[in-house]
């Protein structure tokens, strides 16, 4: 019986550069969404790691194989002329063709897959900043009274983008008009919160602003604050959570007054509000998804928000 061959040639450990390459590619993809410098950094990482990876992978072919000392004697004892001839061909044709086929296949697959997947994912994240919305002259908003104001957030998208804000004119404070503008998107899971009080439909006003967008303004009295029909979240008149599952106060709109018109800007998230009306001190955060906390340990679970 022939003894089993235990003399195995030393096998190189797996290269770690693919991991660096993957990190670089991930950095590029994240950077495409977040920031341009990150794309450059990611690209550099990816290219450097790719070159090192290639160098690692082709080491066996490009340089004479480093033979482990203990395997050398076995080969010296019985050198076969045929083996020498075979060893001289360090990069056989078949290996090259195999690599070329796989490599070309990967390139073709990448050329197709990267734009397709990018087109699937990127539009959801790029250019998502809120448009400015003119909701009409500030005289439409009676002082000290809440109104249900609906408007098109994105007129090009049509009625599907109709949003509701609860707007209260706090009057003029230090020469500047003051407004409380609360989003009706529940901070629990995004259902529309409703005013807990009478709605004066007969005093409904409609205004046409901008490119034929219709704005409706209905005065109301949210004596019981705001309540959500889905899971019973309840808020006071300033949007502070008072009961139910919401994790923070209601979001608010930033606004400006231009040529006597109230213009809504972006939305921001609110942890809580102290005091009321024009004196409100708002604990303000970048806009978060409903259900995501903005402060405390739980907010560490949501370190990055995709909204730009």
């Amino acid at each position, binding site marked *: 019986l022939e003894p089993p061959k235990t003399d195995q040639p030393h096998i190189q450990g797996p290269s770690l550069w693919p991991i660096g390459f993957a990190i670089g590619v991930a950095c590029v993809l994240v950077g495409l969404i977040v920031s341009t410098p990150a794309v450059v950094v990611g690209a550099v990482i990816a290219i450097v790691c790719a070159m090192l990876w290639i160098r690692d992978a082709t080491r066996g072919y490009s340089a004479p194989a480093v033979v482990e000392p203990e395997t050398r004697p076995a080969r010296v004892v019985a050198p076969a002329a045929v083996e020498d001839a075979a060893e001289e061909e360090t990069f056989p044709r078949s290996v090259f063709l195999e690599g070329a086929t796989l490599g070309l296949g990967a390139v073709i697959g990448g050329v197709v897959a990267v734009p397709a997947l990018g087109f699937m994912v990127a539009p959801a994240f790029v250019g998502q900043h809120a448009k400015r919305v003119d909701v009409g002259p500030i005289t439409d908003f009676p002082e000290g009274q809440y109104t249900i104001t609906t408007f098109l957030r994105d007129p090009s998208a049509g009625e599907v983008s109709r949003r509701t804000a609860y707007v209260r004119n706090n009057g003029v404070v230090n020469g500047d008009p003051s407004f409380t503008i609360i989003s009706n998107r529940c901070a629990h899971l995004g259902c529309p919160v409703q005013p807990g009080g009478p709605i004066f439909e007969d005093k409904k006003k409609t205004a046409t602003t901008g490119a034929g967008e219709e704005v409706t303004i209905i005065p109301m009295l949210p004596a019981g604050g705001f309540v959500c029909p889905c899971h019973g979240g309840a808020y006071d008149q300033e949007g502070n959570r008072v009961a139910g599952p919401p994790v923070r106060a209601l979001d608010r709109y930033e606004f400006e007054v231009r040529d006597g018109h109230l213009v809504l800007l972006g939305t921001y998230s609110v942890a809580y509000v102290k005091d009321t009306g024009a004196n409100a001190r708002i604990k303000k955060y970048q806009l978060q998804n409903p259900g995501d906390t903005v402060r405390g340990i739980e907010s560490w679970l949501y370190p990055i928000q995709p*909204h730009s």
Partner: protein
Amino acid sequence: MATVQTKKSGSRLVQVANYPLDWLEERSGLVGGVKYFLFRKVPADIGWFHTLGSATLTAFIVQVTTGVILAMYYKPDPNSAYESIQHITNDLTLGWLVRGMHRWGASVFIILMFFHMARVFLFSAYKYPRELNWIIGVLLLATGMFEGFTGYLLPWDQTAYWASVVGININGTAPFLGPFIAQFLRGGAEIGPDTLARFYSLHMLVLPGALFGLIGLHLYLVIRLGVSPNPWTKDGAGAKRTEVAPTARSGLTRPSSRGKAE
């Protein structure tokens, strides 16, 4: 010449009837493949519980068929989606039936998947060597549930809209990646026309494609590994061997010895 014919003594009529099958078999081997699939041996003591997998497959086929037909009339656009659903239900001949089959069939599909999973779990049919098939089954369950979620938005009525808002925002509460998942599902920072079209595409192209592939793998493994014997069966895997042991099935391979009696 023909390989299908088992009865050489068939009448001329039978030969004529078999000719197309022989023609097909000679060129593709498909007839033999179908026969292999349909006439494979199964443990003797399996019963109605073992039909739940086929029932789930049938429910899936019903969903595919009715879904394809519904797609001929449905319009995935916020301005016309609701109207097109009303048109299907109220105006088109038999539209109410096909939509109803698809709507209720969706629940049937999900419920049968759970029953099938319970059967496999309680009968220990997920054990070696069938773990991979359990894993594929889990993926099928997740994909099937995602089908249900994406399909729920398509009627574009108040229930559909707000249920999807809540569903997307539940995804948004997942740690770290949640807000990104939610924004991907929405197709933007807000729900809009793209959300409906996106859900439609996922519902009728991406997810069914995934389901087809996974079901193919699932069935391949069922055929390759055979139907598992009942855990209480005398000749099942791990059970005490009887005196007739040498010819008894191991339960881990396709049964072969049982057929010898024929």
